[in-house]
């Protein structure tokens, strides 16, 4: 599987070699007509001959040169235009009006029409084709570059550079241009591909440059003699250019495909009961590591019914990973050990179906991103299987008006959403709640309110809460116990109960 990703690159290099030096080695001049017509493949004519007695193999090699030349030149010109115009349009608002206006017009005009129109009377020479296609193929990607530049322009490091006295040209070149590399690469390859196809299409319509052989012109000649399909001659006349064309464009397409991470094998999980863990939330000898880098090592702890336990640690210490592991969200391959809720392991296949939002619930880090922006809150409440009355009751319990249920998330303030999220977490009266840094994005006044609300509801419903935070003050203030993650281990902090 891994080697496959190198294949397109290898094929393209081969094509390039053939295009550059191939014509020097072909056995016949591609226009030479000395052989008989429609010869079958033989030692002299590897792929037989065409109607005019031209050697198909030689034509194919020359066709490779033509196609690649066209593809690469158009891709180069067009990419250059895309970058220059995109930078200008994104960076200077005055240029933007002009460039974007032109782009809009070109985008609306059907390309093929213009190409047909122009090629029809310029005669489809290679130079004209390169100019026309380059001029027509920049708008779409120019817009992408432009929007990237527009956001980059606002980025802090660009602003910083401006404040250090960097001029526009310097900033465009040094700071913005390097960011365009992936786009430029994509654009170059895709344009190369579509240019090759367009040339073949035009040549197929008889609008190519007759002074050179191209795959498209070979196909045009072949298809203007449809009776080659009545016997086997089409096999060596039509198939070779079709196959090369397909292989080349396919390779170009796949060149952009990134290597996929190797598949995580589903392991058969064995679940052993944890001693003394029939009740409560038990974390047993958990090890987590990503790409062989250990996140936590041999972590075991328990959260008892009705208890508030905080998990603290500096950013990057693995708190959130731990939270996700405890909710059974990590793929089985990256962690070992076991986590059980009242004896039900999260490793169990149907844990999610049976226990999510019933036994356990989760309070997401950022309330705004937890709600689906396109669905009304009502829908997002009702889908956990409650009635409208219960939903109304739940939001009213967190001192929200029931009108909020008819709103979209973007119509609510951050505070309202945080409350709604808490309401949602408690709506099915779960036994366990994991809250992953629910306060880190909040302002002090709101944070106080939300934490108070959370603690109040935990106590009221006798729920176990695992509260994950980097805010030591809050952790110490509300918890029965505080666990801290440091150097991949979890230690219990000493608390004095007031």
């Amino acid at each position, binding site marked *: 599987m891994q080697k496959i990703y190198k294949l397109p690159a290898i094929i393209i290099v081969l094509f390039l070699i053939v295009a550059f030096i191939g014509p020097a080695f072909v056995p016949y001049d591609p226009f030479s007509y000395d052989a008989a017509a429609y010869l079958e493949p033989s030692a002299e004519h590897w792929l037989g001959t065409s109607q005019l007695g031209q050697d198909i193999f030689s034509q194919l090699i020359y066709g490779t040169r033509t196609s690649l030349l066209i593809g690469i030149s158009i891709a180069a010109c067009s990419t250059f235009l895309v970058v220059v115009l995109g930078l200008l349009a994104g960076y200077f608002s005055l240029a933007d009006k002009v460039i974007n206006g032109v782009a809009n017009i070109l985008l609306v005009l059907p390309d093929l029409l213009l190409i047909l129109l122009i090629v029809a009377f310029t005669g489809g020479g290679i130079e004209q084709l390169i100019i026309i296609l380059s001029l027509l193929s920049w708008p779409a990607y120019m817009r992408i570059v432009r929007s990237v530049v527009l956001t980059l322009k606002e980025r*802090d490091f660009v602003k910083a*550079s401006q404040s250090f006295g960097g001029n526009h040209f310097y900033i465009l070149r040094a700071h913005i241009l390097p960011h365009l590399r992936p786009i430029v690469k994509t654009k170059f390859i895709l344009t190369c591909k579509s240019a090759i196809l367009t040339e073949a299409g035009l040549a197929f319509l008889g609008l190519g440059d007759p002074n050179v052989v191209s795959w498209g012109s070979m196909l045009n000649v072949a298809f203007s003699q449809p009776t080659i399909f009545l016997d086997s001659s089409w096999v060596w006349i039509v198939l070779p250019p079709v196959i090369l064309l397909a292989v080349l464009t396919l390779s170009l397409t796949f060149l952009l495909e990134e290597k996929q991470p190797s598949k995580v094998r589903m392991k058969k999980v064995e679940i052993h009961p944890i001693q003394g863990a029939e009740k409560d939330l038990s974390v047993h000898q958990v090890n987590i590591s990503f790409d062989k880098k250990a996140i936590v090592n041999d972590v075991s702890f328990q959260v008892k019914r009705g208890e508030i336990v905080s998990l603290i640690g500096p950013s990057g210490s693995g708190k959130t990973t731990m939270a996700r592991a405890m909710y059974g969200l990590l793929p089985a391959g990256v962690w070992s050990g076991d986590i059980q809720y009242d004896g039900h392991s999260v490793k169990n296949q149907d844990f999610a179906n049976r226990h999510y939002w019933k036994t356990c619930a989760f309070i997401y880090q950022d309330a705004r991103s937890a709600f689906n922006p396109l669905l009304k809150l009502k829908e997002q409440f009702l889908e956990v299987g409650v009635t409208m009355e219960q939903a109304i009751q739940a939001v009213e319990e967190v001192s929200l008006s029931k009108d909020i249920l008819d709103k979209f998330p973007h119509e609510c303030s951050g505070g309202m959403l945080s409350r709604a999220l808490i309401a949602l977490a408690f709506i099915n009266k779960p036994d366990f709640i994991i809250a992953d840094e629910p306060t880190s994005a909040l302002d002090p006044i709101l944070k106080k309110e939300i934490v108070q609300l959370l603690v109040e509801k935990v106590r009221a419903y006798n729920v176990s809460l695992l509260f994950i935070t980097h*805010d030591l003050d809050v952790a110490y*203030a*509300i918890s029965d116990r505080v666990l801290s993650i440091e150097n991949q281990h979890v230690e219990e902090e000493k*608390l*004095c109960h*007031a």
Partner: protein
Amino acid sequence: MLEVRNLCKSFGNHLVLKDVSFDIRNEEFVCLLGESGSGKSTIAELLMGLNKPTQGEISWTSDKKNGMQYIYQNPDRSFNPFWTMKQSLMEPLLLKKHPKKDALEKITAMMDKAGLPLELLKKKPSQCSGGQKQRMGIIRALLCNPSLLIADEITSALDPQTEQMIIHFLKELQSSYQMSVLYITHRIQAIEDVADRVLILENGCIVESGQTKEVLQKPKHPYTKRLLDACLYFEKRKKKKVV
């Protein structure tokens, strides 16, 4: 050194700043406190000249040699991800046509002072921790010898321990570089010990200002009280619990 008089700013119909006036004296550490949406960042933008005020004026009373520098909230975004830290740190000096060697020496000296290992210079931003990046951000800003440093929520993405470290680093530098600092935050507890003065911003109005101790201990405005109460709420409760 810097005077701000009757500053107003509106975006469309939305009035963000209402008649804001304050000043910053030489070598002073001023803290601007307020919740998100209160207009803190707008003030910073106006000071930096990135936006024009709708009304009011900003004037320098002392002659401003090197102007001011801005340190960004998010250390991840303030460095070009494609550059090594060395390239990024050299940038302001090279743009001012300093010789390369001098520049490097200057940076090395600063890195030492900040307690940052020199290997970091060879690294890309993604390979450094948030605290390291933020300290290098401060170094980069100081390389221009600014007379005013604006630090806009520079620690809000960091954990409390790192926050403390950075604030003390900044304070240290403030005295050795003889500059003023405008520190923008919503976390009072972090700057208690370092700030000379606090300005409290609510909904685009400065509701209270004064010496740090005075304001924190005897807040006059109800909003200040509420804010202080909320900020210190957990701290107080924690103190009761921890041995």
